[in-house]
């Protein structure tokens, strides 16, 4: 067996480590399917070596791969004459010349197909399919999702503009006194950057709760408020998803929810690259600017949505790409760690769909309305949860208002910053 894969001419090593067997899954064959079988829904398991690339940076890239077996000539068929499975890449070279383009085009496609649900939306790239349920509910979710997307885009724009300030990209700024015992530079070193951070937190307090400067290798340079910097247990944050995301894509990247071990508070970091303005051609990375998002603003947006739409008996949550809760319309539960990863509604939304589905949670039938959110580089989701409105659930609904419904605690990564 020989397996190879590369990106931009650089081989991906240790491909043997990416051998994966799937769980049992359903699939549906349409007319004129590639197996030449009658249309049907059936089940299968799969086994193979895969590559799962994180997002590539904008621009042109080449991805190539090849998988071969030397005894390929010995392939036999079974009794029905069908060669086993589909050995994709069976001693064939596959080369993709890629253009990674601004996702705004994709977003426009999504919006278009969302509003054109009577068309064959399921076959349109970037479409948001509607499973079932009442359109009014999801139109409301659509508007809410736009508001949240705008909020995230605003925070991203603030950070991007800030990253272009001369004081941010000045190389010598990163040579200020560095002290491992305080996890970065002292309080009164490189005052220009600290002052910028303070101004950001003061002016955009609704959006940002902390500002972080990382060096290109992921080491903390400065964190504001300074008390948070002192509380860090490590100054190496190169393992964080937002750091890796920015390094990989060279674009703004929104990380998923983590819990600070020092404060116990949930947080998500939005990060942007800092470039050397004198070196536009090669995009030399001078550092990374990141900010902790203010979850309270999202809590308030969800509460306002419930209140304005007169749906107090329902609960709406914003969850990250892992299904972990970011914000909650229920103020009493907003700080509680919860995961909604097992809800089919969440999974549908991660698949780009918008709709409603009935699911049984804690032995109670609930209607989950879901809608995806283009969260900068990430995919977040809003979930509207309500008791199913039939007679059998009426008593349960009365005894246990959905606004107080709660899932088990989740074990979020207990990591600093």
């Amino acid at each position, binding site marked *: 067996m020989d397996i190879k894969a590369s990106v931009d001419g650089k081989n991906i090593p240790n491909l043997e480590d990416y051998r994966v067997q799937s769980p049992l899954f359903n699939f549906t064959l349409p007319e004129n399917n590639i197996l030449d079988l009658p249309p049907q829904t059936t089940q299968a398991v799969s086994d193979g070596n895969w590559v799962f690339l994180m997002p590539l940076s904008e621009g042109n890239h080449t991805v190539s791969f090849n*998988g071969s077996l030397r005894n390929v000539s010995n392939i036999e068929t079974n009794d029905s004459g069908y060669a086993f499975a589909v*050995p994709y890449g069976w001693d064939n070279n596959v080369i993709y010349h890629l253009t990674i383009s601004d996702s705004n085009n994709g977003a426009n496609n999504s919006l278009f197909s969302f509003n054109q649900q009577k068309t064959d939306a399921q076959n349109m790239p970037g479409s948001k399919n509607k499973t079932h349920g009442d359109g009014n509910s999801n139109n409301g979710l659509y508007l809410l999702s736009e508001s949240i997307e705008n909020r995230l885009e605003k925070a991203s724009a603030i950070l991007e503009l800030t990253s272009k300030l001369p004081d941010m990209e000045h190389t010598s700024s990163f040579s200020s006194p560095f002290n491992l015992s305080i996890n970065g530079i002292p309080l009164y070193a490189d005052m220009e950057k600290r002052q910028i951070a303070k101004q950001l937190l003061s002016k955009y307090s609704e959006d940002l709760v902390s500002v972080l400067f990382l060096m290109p290798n992921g080491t903390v340079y400065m964190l504001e408020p300074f008390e948070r910097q002192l509380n860090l247990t490590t100054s190496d944050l190169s393992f964080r998803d937002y750091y890796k995301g920015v390094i990989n894509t060279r674009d703004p990247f929104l990380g998923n929810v983590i819990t600070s071990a020092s404060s116990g508070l949930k947080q998500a970091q939005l990060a942007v690259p800092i470039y050397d303005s004198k070196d536009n051609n090669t995009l030399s990375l001078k550092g990374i600017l990141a900010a902790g998002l203010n979850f309270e603003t999202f809590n308030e947006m969800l509460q306002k949505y419930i209140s304005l739409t007169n749906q107090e008996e329902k609960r709406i949550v914003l969850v990250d790409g892992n299904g972990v809760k970011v914000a909650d319309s229920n103020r009493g539960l907003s700080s509680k760690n919860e995961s909604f990863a097992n809800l089919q509604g969440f999974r549908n939304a991660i698949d780009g769909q918008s709709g409603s589905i009935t699911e049984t949670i804690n032995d109670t039938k609930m209607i989950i309305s879901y809608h995806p959110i283009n969260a900068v580089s990430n995919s977040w989701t809003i979930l509207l949860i309500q008791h199913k409105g039939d007679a059998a659930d009426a008593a349960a609904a009365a005894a246990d208002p959905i606004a107080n419904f709660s899932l088990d605690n989740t074990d979020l990564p207990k990591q600093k910053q």
Partner: protein
Amino acid sequence: MCSKIMQNNARNIIRGIIELALLLCLAANLEPQLFSFAQSSTNNGNSHNETTTVVFDANSNPYGFTFAEWTAKWWQWAYSIPKDTNPAYDDTGTYCAVNQKGSVWFFPGSYGHDAVRQCTVPSGKPILFPILNSECSFAEFPNLKNEGHLR
């Protein structure tokens, strides 16, 4: 059942080789959550238009699903598309965007010959593709009765 046919014998040999490789990796205590390579631009800030590409680890849970679940989604996607617009039968990339509606983009390999494809992917999309893969289904092997037979 699937395991009686020749290709699966080959598959078992591959599995033995891979399991040996995995043992060697475990012995070396290699268990990165994310594996990065080509890190030419991370240490000193001097990038030269080289990207640092990161792949998801086989035990990770990207975008709310396990890696293994994403491979199942890849098959669901690949088989959902009729042959005349199926990207696996496309030698130029014309159909690379067909049914790419989720948070992850899927690339197929090819059938029986080399392929060079042009494709535009929205920024921010991770990409999943197989190097060597196979599946076993009740549709193709109606005599199989349960998941154990499929495996």
